[in-house]
Each structure stands twice: as C-alpha cells, then as structure tokens.
C-alpha cells in the first residue's frame, strides 16, 4: 500500500468465534510518520483486530506484525509500542502516579519520566489521588500517559478521544500530530469522524469484519465525488437530474445525496435545471459522508 516500510502490518488477519466471523481477511499497513484512523461501526471488528495485532487474541488465520515482528516476540514492548486499548482499566484504589509506576519498570523508565508524563497529560495535581475519583477525561489522559511511558516508536490507541472535553481533544490532536511529525506512527480508532478527518493521514475503514478502504484520506475524499444538499421536497427532483446525467448516486441518512462526479460538473448540471431541482449546495465529501456511504453500500449488498 505504501512505499515506506510498514510499522504496523496485517496480512489476511481473520478471527472466527464459532460460526461468527468477527474479522475476515484484514490486510493493511501503517507506515512511519503517519496517523492512521481505524474506523468502522460498532461490532465491525476493530477491537478484535487491534487485539490480534497486540497478541492478546490469537488469529484464526493471517499474520500481524508490529515493528517487524509479532507483538509477543518484541523485547521490552513498552519501549517500542505504546498501547491504550482499555482506557477505563484501572484499579480504583490506586493513585494515578502509582498506576504509572506499576508499569514504569517494564517500560525501562524511572520516577522522573513518570513526573514528566503526569505533567504532560496535566494530571500533576491529581497524581496522588485514587483513580476512582478521576473523571472520564482524566482516565483517558492517564491511559495515554501509560502508553507513552517507554517513549515508543508507535502508538496504538482504541478510542482515545472518548470522554475528552474540547480542550482535551485539541490537546490530543496536537500530541498525536507531534508524535507523527517525529517520524513515529499512530494507529487510532474513533467514532468522532470530524475529529479524525482533522488528524489522520490514512484511513482503515472496516465493516462486518472486512476492510472497505485502506489508504490515504485524500484518496478516500478524492475530487471525483461530492455531496448535494437540496431544499426539502426537492430530493427526488435532484436525484432525477443526477440520474439523467448518468452519475453514480446514493442518498445518505442525513438527507444529502452523494454523487460520483466532480463538484463543478454536478453544480453546473443542477443549476441548469434549477426550475425543477431548486437551490442546491454542492459540498466536498467528508470522512463522515464516506463512512456512511461505504458502510451503507456494504449493508445493501448483503440485503441483495
């Protein structure tokens, strides 16, 4: 997929639970210096895929490699890969600082690094309080701090932005961008699509255990498609115009119409038929619209 050497890679990764195929033939690469967004509806197989990448769940078939070898064969893995997959996993009675210290030794770092990280995630004031009393956002930040303990080359984060307030989200965005700009790699999952559109370079979109898109965000949002927002009651008329021009089209759940043609072309066609189609807004595709379109398309194929 990329010319650069892959930091995280999956080849034909599959997992069956009895007759349920949770993950089927997932193949992708995450390259150096990239932020990769791992997207998909709930139950799409994201968490299972991440767990197979990390050697927590055995794949039924296929291979996963992190920094060139299976995760379980990495020596001192915390120094290579920082992970946050259970962002709520804490012993309530333990303090934030002690939580970090429980893993600091295995990450090869000492007290000073723990202090640095508490500062970085803005938990210095709460460091000696029991995690039980932390807000969701504080727990997320502590989980990110745990991932950063060993100053790793790659980060794998499952829903790191959940429960963060707007400041927290902006902070996380900056942190991940800096991390990638140093030539390191981030793989993160999230449902916050607008946020993901701001920070990811590449998108791995899965649905029902299968990959729908694996590649650069620009390619997914390419200039060869657009969204049309029309006045109430005019949707059918707009669709008729688009159909008459022979363009691919798909109505989205929010009432907009996805059209598989460049925005300028679509705008010209619709403006020429303004009597029937009414006033329209032609917008570039977004990660959200592509997510809806691809996962919905996928569902319809099943229905047939």
């Amino acid at each position, binding site marked *: 997929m990329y010319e650069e050497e892959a930091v995280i890679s999956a080849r034909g990764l599959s997992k069956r639970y009895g007759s349920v195929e949770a993950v089927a033939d997932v193949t992708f690469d995450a390259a150096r210096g990239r932020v990769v967004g791992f997207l998909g509806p709930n139950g799409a197989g994201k968490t*299972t895929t991440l*767990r197979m990448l*990390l*050697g*927590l*769940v*055995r794949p039924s078939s296929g291979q996963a490699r992190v920094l060139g070898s299976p*995760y*379980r*064969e*990495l020596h001192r*893995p*915390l120094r290579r890969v920082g*992970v946050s*997959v*259970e962002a*709520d*996993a*804490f*012993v*309530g*009675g*333990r*303090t934030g600082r*002690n*939580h970090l*210290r*429980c*893993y600091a*030794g*295995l*990450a090869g770092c000492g007290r000073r690094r723990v202090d640095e990280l508490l500062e970085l995630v803005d938990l210095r004031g709460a460091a000696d309080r029991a995690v039980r009393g932390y807000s969701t956002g504080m727990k997320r930040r502590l989980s990110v701090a*745990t991932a950063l303990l060993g100053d790793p080359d790659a980060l794998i984060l499952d829903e790191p932005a959940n429960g963060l307030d707007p400041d927290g989200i902006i902070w996380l965005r900056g942190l991940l961008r800096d991390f990638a700009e140093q030539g390191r790699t981030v793989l993160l999952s999230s449902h916050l699509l607008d946020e993901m559109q701001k920070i990811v370079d590449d998108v791995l979109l899965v649905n029902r255990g299968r990959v729908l898109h694996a590649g650069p965000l620009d390619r997914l949002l390419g200039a060869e498609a657009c969204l049309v927002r029309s006045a109430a009651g005019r949707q059918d008329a707009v669709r008729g115009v688009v159909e008459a021009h022979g363009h691919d089209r798909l109505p989205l759940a929010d009432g907009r119409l996805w059209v598989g043609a460049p925005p300028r072309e679509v705008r010209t066609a619709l403006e020429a038929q303004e009597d029937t189609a009414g006033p329209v807004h032609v917008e570039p595709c977004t990660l959200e619209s592509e997510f809806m379109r691809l996962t919905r398309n996928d569902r319809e194929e099943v229905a047939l």
Partner: protein
Amino acid sequence: MTQFASEVRKVATTWTWWVVLLGMVAYSACYTAFMVIASRLERSPLDLGSAESAVIVYNMPVAIAYVFPLAMGVVLVTQEYRSKLISQTLLANPSRWSVYGAKAVTGLAVGLLYGLVTVLACTGAAGGLLAAMGEPAYLGSGPVLQAVLGSVAVLTLWGLIGVGVGALIRNQLVAVVGVVVLTQFIEPVFRLAGTGLGGDDVTWLLPGGAGDAAAGGTALNTMTGTAAGGQLPGFAMLGVYAAVFGALGAWRFARYEIS
C-alpha cells in the same frame, strides 16, 4: 525480576493487602487469646499441660486464618481481570509464563509475610498470656518451635495455591466466595463426616487437613477428632496441592484470550 517488582508494586499500592493482613492478625490473635483464656475454665476440654498439647494455641493462624493468604493469592490474579488491567500487564510483558511466574512468587512472598506477621503476633499473644497467668508457655520447646515454623511455611504455600486458584477461576467474586465456602464450611464438614465414617486417618490428605498436619496439628483436628498425620507428610501433601494448583493455573493463564 522487573515483572516481580511490578507485581509487588501492584500489591503495595492498594489498601487491600494491609486490610486483609490486619484482619488476619486481629482474627487469629483474638481466637488465640480466647483459646488460652478458655483453657483456664474449669470445664474446658483443653489441657495445656505439655508442650505437645500446647501446640494447639500456637497454631490458631493455620487452623482458622489460612483463608487470608489464600484469598490474597486469588486477588493477585483476579484483580487484574476484574479491572481489565490484564491487557496492560500482558502488553508490557507478553510472556505469560513470566507474568504468571512473577505472580506465583509474589503469592509466596505475600503468604510468607502474612504468615510471619500473624504467627509472630499470635505466638506473642499466646506466650504472653500463658506467662501472665503463671502457666508454662513452652516457647522454647521442640514441638512449639516446629509448630510455629510449620505454620509460617503452611501459610506461605497457601499464597501460591491462591494464585493458581485465581488463574483457574478468574472471576474475583466467585473465586473468593468459593475459597471461603470450601475452606470454612465444606472441608470441615467432610472432615467431620470422615471421622464419623471411620476415615479419620485419611482426612489429613484434604488441603486444609494437610496444612493442619504440616503445622503439627491444630484445633481443627481436636474439634473433628481427626488425626493430624505427621508434620512432614502433611507438608509434602500441601506441597503437592500447591504444585498442582500452581501448574494448572499456569497452564490456564497461558491460554486465555483477552477479550
């Protein structure tokens, strides 16, 4: 070694370990004091007239409190599943054998610490009370010394058994309630029934019975009228339980999928 340090830190950074230790010491010491004082009652069946018979008051920790290191060993494993921190632990060290091994050693260490503190407290209580009442305490005698050392060893092994049980069951509530019911109710009933059925010479083969034997016989033997069996065979038997539970736990721990 790093993993062991991590496990010790996990134990030391919660309140559980010392609340359980405090409970164990208080419970054992109170019962020990009660036994010593009760032995002075005119109608008491207890006769502390010789070093051999005095062992019973020195062995109260093993008789009633071995469930504490056992439960703590269980919690060493189950707490990580309950809090879901097991993912973090296995990501930090993907070698499950190494993680389990560190937990097993930590279980032994916790058992040893609990055993030492509790046995010291109870030996002090029993010896002090006996001396205060003007009775011989037999503190330096062979049987009492062997009982005290045996008690510490037994309580240490129970910590390891707990780690094995925790890895086999994983659900903290089920495991802790299970060990309490098994050790405090079911096994004593079996031992009583064993005596009734004339099997009193084999009840020391049960885990609690083996522990009692290894400590040199406890109040449980007196109460159920069962023979204690020898100290060394008892210790060997308990060692077999520790090895079996430890190994089964390791086997299971290495195979779980974390979902």
